[in-house]
């Protein structure tokens, strides 16, 4: 079965530190890849997505992610985090011909001022 792994469950950083959150998926065919963010008290919002083309995708709020097909990975990065980035981050995958999203377990990021 298709699965998504996020290895970091909790991450604590100071402001201005660099961030990298890991995401690996198990499906070997064509996939679409997403990172969603859930700020405290708010609903899920899309940070960025990859469908095809340039494997380095840029999203909102300075986030980017790199799709490495050989590693089945789609890691999220930000060079300098802010306190306002405190949130839970979810990696998600769907197959080319299906719409349902398979989510990772999420990573809770706490950025201390």
């Amino acid at each position: 079965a298709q699965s998504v792994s996020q290895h970091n469950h909790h991450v604590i950083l100071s402001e201005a530190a660099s961030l990298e959150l890991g995401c690996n998926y198990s499906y070997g065919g064509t996939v679409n890849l997403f990172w969603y963010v859930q700020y405290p008290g708010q609903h899920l919002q899309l940070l960025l997505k990859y469908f095809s083309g340039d494997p380095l995708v840029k999203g909102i709020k300075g986030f980017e992610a790199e799709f490495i097909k050989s590693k089945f990975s789609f890691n999220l990065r930000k060079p300098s985090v802010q306190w306002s980035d405190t949130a839970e981050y979810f990696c998600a995958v769907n197959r080319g011909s299906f719409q349902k999203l398979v989510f990772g377990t999420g990573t809770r990021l706490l950025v201390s001022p």
Partner: protein
Amino acid sequence: GAGVSQSPSNKVTEKGKDVELRCDPISGHTALYWYRQSLGQGLEFLIYFQGNSAPDKSGLPSDRFSAERTGGSVSTLTIQRTQQEDSAVYLCASSPTSRGLVSYNEQFFGPGTRLTVL
């Protein structure tokens, strides 16, 4: 409205009662999804509606769960004979997808309904 809306925002019920959760998708979106977010299980797909096609019910955890989508718009998720393990946040999402372009559209999520079964 501009986004996906869900009602109620919170629902507390007693074990064994039936509950109905409502989702209003973004106007014009043809696809609608239900997910469940619970401690220990993360975000799980429940059911998916796409236009007039038969829904994908592969994620429903038991036959106590059902969903309808009337007129291609509003959807209702019904849980019969609720159990304590049904306690979770139920999320609805919609997408402007269509046949042939299914890979290229994101899902927009609503705020969820927090269900507590006592």
